C-alpha cells in the first residue's frame, strides 16, 4: 500500500502523467456527482422528515453542512499542497493548490450565506459576531487572499511560494473554526458528524446529508481536475507532448 502510494505520488508529480490519468477520471467524478447530488437533493428536500423544532427550514442543512465541511477540507488540501511545494519542490502541487482555491472560496461563501438565511427563522438574526461565524469569515478572506496574491505576484515561482506560505499559516484558523463552538459561548450548534459518536439525528435525516457530502466531494474532484488540466497545458506549453496533443485537436 505504502509503495503504491509512493509510486502514485511520483507519477502525479509529472504533468504529462497527471494530464493523461486525470482525463480518464473526469467522467467518474461527473457521474458520481450527478448521482449523489441528485439522490441527496430529492431525499433531503422531499423525503427526510422535518425537524420537530425548526420545521422545514432545517433542510438548509443539506447544503450548509457539506459546504462548511468542504470549505475547511479544501483549505487543508491547499495547505498540504503548499507543504509539498515548499519541501519537495513539486510543481504539480502548486497547480493543484491554484485549482483548489476558487472552489474552496465558493464553499466558504455558500456556508456563510446559507447559514445567514437559516439564521433568520431559527435564531432571529442573519449575522452575529460569534466565534464560529467570525472564524468562517476569516477563512473566506484567507481564500480571497490566496487568490489575490496569485494574481498580484510575478513571476509564477514567487507567487506559488507566497500562496503556499499563506495557505500554511492560515491553517491555524481551521482548529479555531472546529473548536469555536466548544471554546466560546456561541449560538452555533456543535458538529453534526463526529468520528467517534453516532449522529444525534435519525438515519432518515443524516443519510441524505452524507450522500450530499459525497456529491460535493465528487463535484470538487471534477472541478479541480478540469482547472488543473487547463493550467498544465498553459504551463507545459513548451513541452513536446503538449504540442503533439494540441495538434491532434
Amino acid at each position, binding site marked *: 500500500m505504502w509503495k503504491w502510494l509512493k509510486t502514485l505520488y511520483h507519477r502525479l508529480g509529472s504533468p504529462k502523467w497527471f494530464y493523461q490519468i486525470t482525463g480518464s477520471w473526469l467522467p467518474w467524478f461527473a457521474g458520481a456527482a450527478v448521482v449523489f447530488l441528485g439522490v441527496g437533493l430529492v431525499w433531503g*428536500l422531499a423525503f*427526510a422528515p422535518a425537524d420537530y423544532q425548526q*420545521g422545514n427550514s432545517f433542510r438548509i442543512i443539506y447544503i*450548509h453542512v457539506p459546504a462548511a465541511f468542504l470549505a475547511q477540507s479544501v483549505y487543508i488540501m491547499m495547505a498540504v499542497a503548499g507543504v509539498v511545494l515548499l519541501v519537495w519542490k513539486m510543481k504539480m502541487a502548486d497547480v493543484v493548490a491554484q485549482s483548489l482555491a476558487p472552489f474552496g472560496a465558493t464553499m466558504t461563501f455558500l456556508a456563510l450565506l*446559507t447559514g445567514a*438565511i437559516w439564521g433568520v427563522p431559527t435564531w432571529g438574526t442573519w449575522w452575529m459576531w460569534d466565534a464560529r461565524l467570525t472564524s468562517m469569515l476569516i477563512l473566506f478572506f484567507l481564500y480571497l487572499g490566496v487568490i489575490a496574491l496569485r494574481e498580484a505576484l510575478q513571476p509564477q515561482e514567487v507567487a506559488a511560494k507566497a500562496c503556499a506560505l499563506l495557505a500554511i499559516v492560515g491553517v491555524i484558523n481551521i482548529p479555531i473554526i472546529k473548536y469555536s463552538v466548544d471554546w466560546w459561548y456561541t449560538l452555533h450548534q456543535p458538529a453534526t458528524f463526529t468520528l467517534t459518536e453516532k449522529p444525534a439525528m435519525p438515519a432518515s435525516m443524516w443519510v441524505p446529508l452524507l450522500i450530499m457530502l459525497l456529491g460535493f466531494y465528487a*463535484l470538487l474532484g471534477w472541478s479541480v481536475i478540469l482547472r488543473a488540466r*487547463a493550467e498544465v497545458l498553459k504551463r507545459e506549453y513548451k513541452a513536446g507532448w*503538449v*504540442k503533439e496533443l494540441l495538434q491532434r485537436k
Partner: protein
Amino acid sequence: MYFDSLSDFFNMGGHALYVWSAFAISLLLMLLNIILPWWNFKATRLQLQRQLRREAKQQANSSITEQQGEQV
C-alpha cells in the same frame, strides 16, 4: 414523500422563502463552478492551438527567408 401534496412541498411549512432561496443560490454557485472551469479549459486549448499555429507559420517564414538569403 414527507409532504402531503406538491403545494405543501413548495410551501415548506411556511419556510419556503428561506429553503428555496438557499437552494437556488447554491445551485447557481455550483453551476458556476461547473461552467467556468469547462469554458476555461476549452478557451485555454483553443488559444494555445492558435499560438502554436502562429509560431509554426513564423518558423516556416523565417526558414524561407534564410534559404533565400543563402541563394543570394
